[in-house]
């Protein structure tokens, strides 16, 4: 569903690679978590695979389509929820979703069916005909989710989707992620919430300084339990350990020893 091979990305005025030799393969029907500290390269990777950023070298294929060579077909199979809930704020929620549906060539019947279903599921019925400008942070996130799902994408990419959402909305999105995968699609999302990733993902990757550190199979119950420990171990290397890192490490160690 998603194949990333030896991805390198360096920004124009940067001396170091933001993403370095990253390779990943996502299978059909799985929920994949993408973990890393702030600035590790998660959002850059996502922006490369969604076609927002060009990349230095490597290959990204979505449903077999190369994002560099066949960007239109690759994007057609993908739905994207950005981290900054960027939307066309002058449009109403309905106008925005219809715009997206037109772009992805969704027919009238499917769009009406999905639109009604998601608007109700994410409790946006009262606001859907209001200008997005007036939406709260969470509401903007929800309308982005609806727009990303209106064409029932094979690959659903979400960048920090739970940020600023209330508990109920988080549950709705997680529910939708599960349903989406059960329908044979794939979900790829970045997050800082280790508990959430451990709970919902089939696999998770940890990235540090732009390099992929490991891919963890979370179907194995033991891995779910030790995810937090592994994350801390990987992300706080010895050479850069500060007092805060050491304190955090001790805290996590104590916590797991208690178990």
């Amino acid at each position, binding site marked *: 569903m998603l194949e990333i091979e030896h991805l390198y990305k360096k920004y124009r005025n940067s001396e170091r690679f933001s993403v370095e030799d990253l390779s990943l393969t996502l299978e059909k029907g799985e929920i994949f978590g993408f973990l890393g500290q702030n600035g590790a390269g998660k959002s850059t990777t996502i922006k490369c695979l969604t076609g927002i950023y060009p990349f230095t070298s490597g290959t990204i294929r979505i449903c077999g389509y190369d994002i560099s060579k066949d960007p239109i077909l690759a994007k057609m199979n*993908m739905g994207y929820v950005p981290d900054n809930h960027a939307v066309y704020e*002058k449009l*109403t929620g309905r106008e925005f979703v219809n715009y997206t549906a*037109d*772009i992805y060539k969704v027919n009238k019947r499917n769009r009406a069916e999905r639109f009604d279903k998601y608007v109700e599921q994410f409790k946006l019925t009262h606001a859907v*005909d209001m200008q997005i*400008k007036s939406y709260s942070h969470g509401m903007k996130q929800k309308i982005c989710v609806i727009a990303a799902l209106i064409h029932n994408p094979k690959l659903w990419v979400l960048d920090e989707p739970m940020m600023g959402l209330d508990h109920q909305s988080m549950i709705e999105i997680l529910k939708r992620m599960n349903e989406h995968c059960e329908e044979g699609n794939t979900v790829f999302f970045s997050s800082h919430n280790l508990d959430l990733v451990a709970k919902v993902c089939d696999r998770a990757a940890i990235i540090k300084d732009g390099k992929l550190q490991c891919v963890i199979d979370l179907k194995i119950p033991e891995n779910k339990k030790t995810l937090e420990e592994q994350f801390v171990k990987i992300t706080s290397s010895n050479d850069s350990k500060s007092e805060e890192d050491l304190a955090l490490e001790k805290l996590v160690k104590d916590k797991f020893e208690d178990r």
Partner: protein
Amino acid sequence: MNNIFTLLKLEIKDTGLGNFRVKDYKSWFKLVMYAGVVVAFFFFALFASKIYFSMFKTAGIAYEALIIFFSVVFALLTITGTSGTIKVLYFKSDNEILIRYPLTGNEIFTSKILFLLIRQIITTILILIPFLYGYTQIETVNKAFMYRAPLVVIFMVLITFCLSNVLAIPVMHLTNKIRNKFILIIISLAIIVMALFAGYMMLFNKMVVYMKEQDFSVFDQEIVNKIEMASRYLYPKAFADLLTGEKLYMAYPFLLIPTGVGIALTFLIVETLYFKTLLINVEIEGSAFKRKTRNTVRPVFFTLLNKEFIQVFRSVNYSFQYFVLACAMPGMVFFSNSIVQTLARQQSGERMTFGVTLLVMMVFTTIITSFAATTVSREGHSFYLTKTAPVKIRLQLFAKFTMYFIVSFLANSISLVVIAGAKQMSVNYALITFVIVQLNSISLTLIAMRTDIDKPAFNLVGDGGEIQNNNVNTTRAVTTGMLVSLLLGMLGMIFGAQLKLIILVIFSLTMLGFIYAILRYEINLRKKYYSINN
């Protein structure tokens, strides 16, 4: 008190004037530039005031001209004051931040009102001094005129300032009521722009005619009588009376009472309404209109076009620059063309008509097409979203181009009908002018679009991350357009005697520009577009 001055300093810094650094050459350069603009304005205003007052003096109504001048200044200061008060006091984006701090409503209000007062004083002085000085050059005045002039400035500042503060709240509520009635706003603004422009052009015409025939009055007796009659009943007559020492027993109460009442009302507003209104407005800023639409299915191109149109149409700043000016363009072209043609004909007969019309149309078309220089910039954060759409770049950009093209084509076509209909030009020459202007309009649009794609000026703060006003690319687009307009217009005027030949030359230049614009737009377009935000 410290809080008030800190807030006032912040307010001044926000204008860009408060960042002066003694050791920074850019600061000095900026200061010299500002000083240069002020001096240039002073001399220009002095020159204009001398013509203005002597034009009325020839008709025997110099004093009435002073009353009319005070009336215009009074209206202008009240309008700009009210608009400034609404923007700074009630709708400034920092209000939401400031009310979170441990500051009282009075402290926020006082700092902002001091800022507005300083601005009102500077504006009033800048306008009044050159014109009053100009009046003394035309009319004999006594010594008291000089002593009373500062008093006039003080009264003018205080009365218009207080009036602005009193008017701000009702005007603001009215604005809130119509803020989402976009068609109404666009039509009203187009009418106002056209009316102001027509008034300005008529006065300009009279002044130019007077400059040529200084011994004759440009007003007939009926108009003179009307001006005399009307000026007797205008409130700002009190300023003229005070300045010239006429009916002082009437002038002082007429100025002192409104000043006292205005100050009292302003204080009353602080105590009762300010903080409450501020809170309401912070809420209203986040509110938006509701519009129920159907789930219409559109082809990709039309959905892109529709989105572009809505985005611009529902942003008052952009709508003004774009749709309002496009709506007003035929009227403005007609007025400018008729006046400039009258003057040009008197100088050099029919031969300048083509060049003048071309220049006028090109200038207006430049202003309209400069909007294309925000093609990418105005999307702000949403540009990420645009980039992820499974639509070819060229189609995305073509939708934007189509919107620019439709607007400029309609504005130019209606201008063509107006020009030909008013017989300012023969139909054949009007058509040729239209073709040349339209081709240049396409070229300027493509160049402006590409300039913005090469170096977009995103301003990622504020409403949806979109840019609030024009950016450096717009300035570049306007400069390029004006230079092209001047070049082609001047060629048409200078060599108007050999009309067919010069049309051929101008058309050839236009075609060259057109080819250059297409190449400039096309070469490396995809690469440049993808590298935005990289």
